């Protein structure tokens, strides 16, 4: 490439950017880390910085820009030194988000999506940050604040304005605290029910030690025999996934832990990452031994950046103790190490293909399947992507045996599952239960007996009504990655549906037109129902368009995004039919001519000679 003088000058003007790129060996696959570091350093990624990054990594500038513009936590406009991101989940809205927004706006003197003129504060919304059990919540740079009230907001802003760091809001001794103490001070654990597998007492590395006595094939057999299915939502047999990866001939293999817990209403991985990080790494190490992987990645969602140090510390500790790195536990040829990859605010990266793209330094766009990641994944090598909870289960299964795990739960859904319960209930938090409990039983434990509706599995799951609360939490009945959101009778079902559609509109990666455009149309159509402007045909329209989006999208986002609509049409049909306006004389009562001509009336400065009755009088 021809390098001009101006470009050279630019590089020398941006020594830090060059330095950041060099920290990551100018590796284009580490683009997300590079851009995150630049964002942290400069509070934005300027065009010039992108040019320098492009040259350092040998990519085109447009490729760098493609990544920088994809992720919500990266921005091309300068953000304030202190960026306040308010969690805009429906649970936060019902918990008083409006008052929190008003308090921040009036105290800071800026509106949402603005940056203060002195460049100190930025205020913005962000989708669910995994704190639904302690809403309303916010991120202030890398610090999490929960249980916000307008009074707290006033105090927070006053302290930040007086020059305190966001970290000081947590503790004046923040720098002296251990990573675990920091996490605990920011976020409540809220473990409400500990089950036998994960949240009860767990011996250290017993599973890993047991795995040393087994051949890789035996480990896979054990996991497969336990009946363990993926806990992220899809429920694919973990053992079979490993077997595919192990059987594929390749020079390198990878184990990736999916800690991109983005489904609104889910926060069980947050609890595991805080309470059981060693168990997770133990599970990954066992998986590595089983499939013959030497390299692993933990993909941590950007919103959980407050857990980064905690996980880094765990990894360092395990390296020191010979539990990670070369010759694990003294076993020749058992080499495995893990790097932590931070996400940057993109729900779609929870999809395994998109997650791999993101790890490769690309925009988080899903990949076309097949080939599946188990045969061609990260950098083209066989890759096992498992959820945090799945990997934790693995470590326990190796310790206690497959029969023990298989014996819990129900036919087809073995073992225990973590449920993140939030919304209108007295005891929001995490419940570890064997599969097979009914929604009603879980509601009773959580103090949500009065619920009018429960969303099982987050917006891409199923919304059920009181008459079906006896349905079972299993893969065969109500499958869930763990999110259980409870709504009381005061809540407006259509408001909830419209919110979740806006979430999918925001989070669609934009690759497939039916998902990018179709979800916008669905959201608009739900809006018509809310305004009382829908007619009978609109119900059919919702169904038709939903079917098209599901059928023609290439990843799970588009295949499930119409679910809030489809499951409420199915389980709350009266909510929709109550809002339908029938036609009169076969002309649509839903078409409002007065509002349709009001703009033109104003522009033309005259009245209608057809529809203004008093015209000419």
């Amino acid at each position, binding site marked *: 490439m021809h390098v001009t003088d101006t470009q050279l000058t630019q590089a020398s003007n941006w020594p830090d950017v060059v330095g950041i790129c060099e920290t990551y060996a100018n590796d284009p696959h580490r683009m997300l880390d590079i851009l995150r570091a630049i964002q942290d350093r400069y509070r934005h990624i300027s065009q010039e910085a992108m040019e320098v990054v492009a040259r350092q990594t040998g990519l085109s500038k447009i490729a760098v820009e493609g990544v920088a513009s994809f992720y919500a936590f990266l921005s091309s406009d300068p953000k304030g030194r202190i960026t306040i991101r308010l969690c805009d989940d429906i649970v936060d809205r019902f918990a008083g988000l409006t008052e929190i927004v008003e308090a921040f706006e009036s105290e800071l003197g800026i509106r949402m999506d603005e940056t203060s003129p002195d460049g100190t504060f930025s205020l913005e919304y962000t989708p669910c940050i995994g704190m639904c059990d302690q809403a309303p919540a916010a991120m202030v740079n890398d610090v999490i604040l929960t249980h916000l009230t307008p009074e707290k907001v006033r105090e927070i802003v006053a302290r930040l304005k007086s020059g305190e760091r966001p970290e000081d809001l947590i503790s004046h001794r923040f720098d002296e605290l251990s990573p675990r103490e920091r996490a605990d001070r920011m976020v409540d654990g809220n473990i409400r029910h500990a089950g036998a597998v994960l949240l009860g007492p767990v011996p250290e590395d017993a599973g890993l030690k047991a795995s040393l006595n087994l051949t890789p094939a035996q480990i896979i057999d054990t996991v497969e025999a336990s009946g363990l299915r993926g806990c992220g939502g899809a429920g694919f047999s973990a053992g079979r996934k490993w077997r595919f990866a192990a059987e594929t001939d390749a020079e390198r293999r990878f184990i990736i832990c999916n800690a991109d817990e983005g489904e609104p209403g889910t926060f069980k991985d947050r609890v595991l990452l805080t309470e059981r990080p060693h168990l997770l790494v133990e599970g990954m190490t066992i998986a590595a031994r089983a499939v013959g992987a030497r390299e692993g990645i933990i993909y941590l969602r950007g919103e959980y950046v407050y857990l980064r140090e905690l996980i880094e510390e765990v990894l360092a500790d395990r390296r020191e103790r010979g539990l990670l790195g070369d010759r694990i536990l003294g076993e020749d040829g058992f080499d495995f190490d893990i790097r932590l990859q931070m996400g940057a605010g993109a729900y779609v990266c929870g999809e395994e293909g998109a997650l791999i793209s993101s790890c490769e330094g690309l925009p988080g766009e899903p990949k076309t399947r097949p080939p599946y990641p188990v045969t061609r994944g990260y950098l083209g090598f066989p890759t096992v992507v498992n959820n945090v909870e799945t990997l934790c289960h693995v470590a326990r299964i190796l310790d206690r045996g497959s029969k023990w795990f298989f014996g819990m739960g129900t036919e087809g859904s073995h073992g225990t599952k973590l449920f993140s319960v939030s919304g209108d209930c007295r005891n929001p938090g995490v419940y570890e239960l064997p599969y097979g409990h009914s929604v009603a039983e879980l509601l009773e434990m959580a103090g949500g007996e009065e619920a009018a509706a429960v969303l099982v599995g987050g917006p891409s799951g199923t919304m059920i009504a009181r008459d079906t609360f006896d349905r079972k939490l299993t893969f065969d009945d109500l499958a869930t990655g763990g999110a259980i959101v409870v709504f009381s009778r005061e809540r407006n079902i259509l408001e909830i549906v419209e919110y979740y559609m806006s979430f999918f509109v925001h989070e669609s990666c934009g690759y497939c037109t039916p998902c990018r455009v179709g979800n916008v149309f669905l959201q608009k159509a739900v809006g018509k129902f809310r305004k009382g402007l829908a007619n009978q045909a609109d119900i059919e329209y919702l169904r038709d368009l939903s079917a098209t989006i599901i059928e023609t999208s290439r990843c799970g986002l588009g295949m499930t995004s119409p679910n809030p609509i489809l499951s409420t049409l199915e389980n709350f049909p009266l909510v929709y039919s109550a809002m339908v306006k029938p036609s009169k004389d076969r002309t649509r009562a839903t078409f409002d001519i007065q*509002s349709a001509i009001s703009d033109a009336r104003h522009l033309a400065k*005259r009245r209608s000679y057809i529809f203004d009755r008093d015209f000419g009088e």
Partner: protein
Amino acid sequence: MTELPKARIATASLAGCFGCHMALLDIDERLIELMKLVEFDRSPLTDIKTFSHRCDIGIIEGGCCNEENVHVLRDFRRNCDILIGIGQCAIMGGLPAMRNAIMHSDEPLRECLEEAFITGRYIRNTTHNIPNDPALPLLLDEVYACSEVVEMDYHIPGCAPTGDVIYETLSSLLAGKFRGFEKEKIRFD
């Protein structure tokens, strides 16, 4: 010998280009056959401006871009047993609905008119005004498909539909045998 009463047909072009009415004439000599079965009431083809009788079939070209379109369409709905939308403009707004794409503006209608009459690069408008004669109907905020304003019974797709499709649809409707379109007939790629 008693002759069957002829079916009455009315037609109108709303926010369309009259192309669909032209396509009606693409029926060619079959028009003579058709005329044995029908007579035209209100229509630009007859220059009859108001309904003289209730009609069996109303044919609508174009969507609704102004208040007069809405008025005419409602009048058709009230005076016709069966209402047929003909062409993409009637079905979904068509080309005129491109102005609906001006959505990230506080005043989309003003922005549209200003570009069309004043600021557009190829405009030679010596008055520098947006036409505002009192006889001009007020524009709607958006261009609407006919089915958003009234219930439509049938749609004949195409831009414009072919004479064949129009003839076959009308004649099978008149014979009470319309069972939908053959796929090849409404395939345009």
